[in-house]
């Protein structure tokens, strides 16, 4: 994709469907133009694709593709920051209404060596926007000879998603990564400069672990622990109880696994396996995928052992 644009390679068939060049991040347009009907040359950073005209007359056929069945946002993904970096964990079930469409999906995708993205919402939309984000980050890196920070990447993604607000695009990504440089200068700094008066996170050092949530509604939140999806309330319950900055790597991994396991136990739309990624200053590393069914049986056995031991103690005590 990126190579195509740089070489000005034009695939005629594809051009008819998607006649838009990659976005140019060199020009800065401070005017926020809402997209109108037809598109022209996309010179501003915000315009990537033009969303289809929203139909005013309900009797007209819709221009977006009709969904064959209702897609639900069933998933449990989580990410948190601690002294040893960032942990990103997710289940692997793709649900479509009440059907498990696929039990072994990859919801965590590496974007570059120090950024990993967890996705929830519509699988197709997430896949597409992850690729677009990868392309734009790579183009930025080639053009400016420095890597975009995590917050800059999040803001870029948020600006790209903004024209699609109100359409059926459903994307909720958590960018989990490690910022390498300290004290950015130039465009990237302007991109991720916070606009609020005092931003607690901007006073933190500009290198280190970073966690940002970006959603197709337009929300962009930086935080220390983020969980997304139908299983997220259950995950928050486990995480909020056990999380602290000074966890060791093993404790953090085990907490993340436990949180996803409890969420998959209660939430019908999450389940099957758990994927776990760990991002440090050296890059991301992936733990082998684990089947949560085994974890469930182990947990059941632990409970029955505890019950048996307590009954035995009671007998002995009498």
């Amino acid at each position: 994709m990126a190579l195509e644009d740089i070489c000005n390679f034009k695939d005629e068939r594809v051009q008819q469907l998607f006649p838009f060049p990659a976005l140019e991040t060199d020009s800065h347009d401070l005017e926020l133009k809402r997209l109108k009907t037809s598109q022209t040359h996309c010179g501003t950073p915000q315009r990537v694709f033009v969303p289809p005209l929203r139909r005013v007359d309900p009797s007209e056929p819709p221009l977006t593709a009709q969904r064959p069945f209702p897609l639900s946002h069933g998933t449990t993904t989580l990410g948190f920051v601690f002294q040893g970096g960032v942990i990103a964990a997710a289940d692997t079930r793709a649900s479509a209404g009440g059907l498990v469409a696929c039990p072994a999906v990859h919801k965590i995708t590496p974007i570059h060596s120090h950024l990993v993205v967890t996705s929830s919402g519509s699988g197709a939309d997430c896949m597409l926007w992850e690729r677009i984000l990868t392309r734009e980050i790579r183009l930025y890196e080639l053009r400016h000879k420095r890597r975009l920070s995590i917050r800059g990447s999040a803001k870029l993604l948020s600006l790209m998603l903004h024209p699609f607000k109100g359409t059926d695009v459903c994307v909720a990504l958590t960018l989990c990564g490690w910022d390498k440089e300290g004290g950015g200068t130039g465009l990237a700094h302007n991109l991720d400069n916070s606009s609020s008066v005092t931003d607690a996170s901007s006073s933190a050092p500009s290198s280190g672990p970073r966690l940002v949530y970006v959603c197709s509604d337009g929300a962009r939140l930086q935080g220390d622990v983020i969980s997304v999806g139908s299983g997220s309330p259950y995950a928050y319950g486990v995480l909020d109880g056990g999380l602290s900055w000074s966890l060791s790597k093993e404790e953090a991994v085990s907490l993340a696994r436990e949180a996803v396991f409890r969420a998959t136990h209660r939430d019908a739309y999450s389940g099957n396996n758990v994927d776990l990624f760990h991002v440090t200053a050296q890059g991301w590393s992936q733990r082998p995928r684990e089947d949560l069914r085994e974890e469930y049986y182990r947990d059941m056995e632990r409970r029955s052992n505890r019950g048996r031991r307590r009954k035995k103690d009671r007998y002995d005590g009498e």
Partner: protein
Amino acid sequence: MEYLIGIQGPDYVLVAADNVAASSIIQMKHDYDKMFKLSDKILLLCVGEAGDTVQFAEYIQKNVQLYKMRNGYELSPSAAANFTRKNLADYLRSRTPYHVNLLLAGHDDADGPGLFYMDYLASLAKAPFAAHGYGAFLTLSILDRYYRPDLTRDEAVDLLKKCVEELNRRFILNLPSFNVRLIDKDGIHDMEKISIGTK
């Protein structure tokens, strides 16, 4: 869900906003700042639909700064408020209106302090005190009862604390902490955060 409040005194404006960033039933952030600095003496407090708030507020912020760069002097709070209202009104009948409720607070060297109330239908009103959100239903009567145009800064903070106390007692949602800022002729000052339990 979200709450904004502003109180204007004889030579200052006191504003506060809650710190919760929520997504359906979950509090995703407990320390989220809803105030945007438009210039050295103007603050824009913005609540409403998730992406619209930040997009619209940053758009206004950058345009106010652009005005300063182009013309060499800053927009007054009244001019900034009217500019903001005009943008809301322009987008109101488009296919993509901004669903945001705003309070603009500022201090002008010529006109003194000003608090402007704007809502998503692009109405604008200069008011001595104002609030947005469900919490406004509970606290406007308290403001009506105790507000005087010659409140001192400490009295204004006490009035604010009374409002927060009422919210903690009667509002079903938990709003644990509030950012508080004061604007006067010397600029924007951060004040102590109000949390549950501060007296």
